[in-house]
């Protein structure tokens, strides 16, 4: 079985959401672009190595949220390009809403007057 670190579940959910949102923003992209974009947006706070990113992509593909096809990059390298599926868009919407709800709750909790 996978050697699951305690925080993996939270991280995994977060990671999936990050990837889905990035693909929505960028359109069809390969893994390197996705990792670079997440790194850039997070100002370098989130650095995804391959061992984290690609299993996540595969998981999302297995669940039918994204779909990968081989293509060619602008500098002529073969790579797999991932794009959101309809199910992926629904999932992104649902997860975004859930995340915002959770964040609002946490915010209220953390800033409550007492």
């Amino acid at each position, binding site marked *: 079985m996978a050697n699951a670190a305690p925080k993996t579940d939270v991280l995994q959910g977060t990671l999936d959401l990050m990837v889905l949102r990035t693909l929505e923003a960028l359109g069809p992209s390969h893994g390197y672009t996705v990792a670079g974009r997440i790194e850039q947006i997070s100002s370098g706070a989130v650095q995804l*190595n*391959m061992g984290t990113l690609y299993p996540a992509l595969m998981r999302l593909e297995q669940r039918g949220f994204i779909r990968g096809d081989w293509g060619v990059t602008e500098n002529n390298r073969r*790579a797999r390009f991932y794009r959101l599926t309809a199910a992926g868009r629904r999932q992104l919407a649902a997860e975004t809403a859930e995340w915002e709800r959770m964040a609002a709750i946490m915010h209220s909790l953390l800033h409550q007057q007492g």
Partner: protein
Amino acid sequence: MPTLREWFSRLWHTLRPSHRDADLEDELRAHLALAEDDARGRGVAPDAARRAAILRAGPLAPALDAMRDQRRLPWMADFGVDLRRAFRTLVHHPGFAATAVLSLALGIGANTAIVSVVSGVLLRPLPFPHPDEIVQVSVMNASDPRLPAQYVTGADLTAWRTHARSVRALAAFLVTSRTLQDGVEPERLAVVETQAPLFAALGTHAAIGRTLRDDDAPDAAVISAGLWQRHFSSDPTIVGRRLTLDGQSFIVVGVMPHGFQFPYPRGASADLWSLDNGASTDVWVPWSRRLSDQGRVDSVIGRRQHGASIDAARVELTAIANGLVAGRHVNVVPLSDVVAGHVRLPLLVLLGASGLVLLTACANVANLLLARAASRAHETAVRAALGASRWRLVRQHVAEGLLLSGAGGVCGLLVAVAAMPPLVAIAGSYLPRATDIGLDWRVLAVLAGVCLAAGVVFGVVPGARVDLERDMKSGERGNAPHGRVRDGLVVAEVALAFALLVGAGLLLRTFVNLRHAPSGFDAAGVLTAHIAVANADESAAIDARVRSIPGVQAAGFVSLLPLQESGWFGRFAIDGRDGMGSAEFRYVTPGYFRAMGIPITRGRTFTTADRADAALALVVNDAFVRQYLPDVDPIGRVLHDRGEIVGVVGDVRQVGLDESPVPEIYYPVAQNFAQLSSVGSTLVVRSDQPFPWLADAIRAAVRDVNPHQATFRVEPMTDVVAASMGDRTLYVSLLGIFAIIGTAVAAAGVHAVIAYLVATRTREIGIRLALGATTGDVRRLIMRRGAALVAVGLAAGGVAALLLTRFLQGALFGVAAIDPLTFAGVAVLLALVGLVASVGPAERAARIDPAVTMRIE
């Protein structure tokens, strides 16, 4: 949450082992290349760019592994590999695999067969709605339960019907046998006389027509689906057709559905009525006799109201019955107990025994696997050192265990499937509900559970005991780790075999005791034939005609043969004495005692002078005299309204060879024909002629007297005796088979452990021999080890047997549950088996060549 779709995708990839993961690597390499391009684009030198790319993206190999794990179900894929490896290992050790699979197949096969029987006979509910509510009601004598049971009277039944709230639909029924005379061949059928509520109590409706009604004429009849098919060719317009039973015409009012049986035959007693259609009842007719207040009701069935417990019903019915005649005790028994209660204990004993066989087999296989694990301890330790997790190592063992138990289970199922038809054929005559025996989900569930549990245990036990440090240090393969556990398992095997053998031995001694028990009659040279005589004159005529057959020494009729269950008893008063007594009644013709070889101890037997118009004569047995007239000469004593005692005969074991003789009164048929006709009649002939010839001669004689008279079930008295022990024969044979299997498995276990001992101590033995030990010393060394194991096993087995044989108590006769002779005999037998099992390895040890063993290292 992983979606179903993800599982399918991963399962799909798992089950395609040929699938390569090149595409995954391509993708990762592309990622690295892109990172490298980026770095170079920022002006980094090629080598540095590659390092920077790897630094940023992470190493390739772990990422690839993570992707592979995500792509499939890694544990499942690995387990497939484990199974394949286990299979190869087993194929390379055919002896080991065969021993293990064979032990398991025998253990599992025996269990599957017995569980099938238990499931069909004891567990499967009777095929009636809410069968647990159906009860049978009887009355017992509260003061002395050993006396023949008192009976339910017509008054009891009426009072219960009026007042009882806990039980409804009470119906009397009486099982009789009658001859169906419409067909070409007369057919002997079980006919139940009963009352309308019987069908309400059972909750079953007729398939065609209707069941009996309270206002039915006495000639109404409900027939079974079987009789409807074979006698009426499944005529859909059956209602209104007639059938003739013993000369009386009945009108069919309904046909019961297929599979409807009532009463359920109890097994051996099925022979009693000498029926042509097994023992199933074919006709239900209205209760024919007037049910007077004091009249006897044989059996009563009813249905408990919802929520009324058995105890509540018993208390209520007892109170009502004692309101009429005090001092009685009403027994309320669930129908399932009536049907199968008498086989519960023997079947559970057999179930326990087959469980012991399975335990022995499992212990043996666990032992073999431990020995193998020990010889691979070094390999295992190396794999652990190279990074295999403990779980991974255990899994390999579990795979092997599951493979073995699975193969054992499949073979066991085959054994059971092969064993079931003969078992059911033999058991069918002695077990109720034999037709319900078969492989059902319960059996298969037990089977699967046993296999799974055994497999996992086989795997976990050796797998969990990896001691890395110790195993690595030992250069020699196998320095006998977990030797204690293995010894313990062998001891357990011997102990289990001991318990099984003691059980079988006790039953065997019981069997022998019964064969030699004084039956009170002489069965040799006696032929019996069931003939439903029409009247006393006919019985006398047949009597006389048969006696004139050459070679016939004596012949006579009796109402019920000895050893045929179901007594016919009644109460009597002795003139000049207080109180009532109770005794078995039998009706005989004058020649019966001589034909059966029953000695006259006082007075005379009946003669042809004891006619209907003569003074009523009675013969009693020794037990009667002992109990009721111990202090006086019984001859000439008068039983009120019944007759004068003219003679005393020896005791006969009427009920069973293991039952003490009960007081008996014999009546002459000539003076009591009405009674005989309702019980039945059997001709008993003693001669020195061969039976087949004699049987034909008897049939011819009967035809001479009455051409329409049928002769049923002609069989030697010795067969009747054997049939009365048939269930015991079955139980003792099965337990014997289990004991033999258990012993063989235990012997294999002892052999395996000693052989393994020799194999692992080859070098030590070589050194001993080199240092001057004789081959005799070596032989003794090895044999002593075997003897020690067996000795401890015998001690443990003795204790186990002491604890277990008490469950056999009820089945034993003439032998104590703790029988020193049996225990000692079994101990000697097992000790011999153990020694024989160690002889081979000891010989091998003695032939070890020191020069060769020293060179091995």
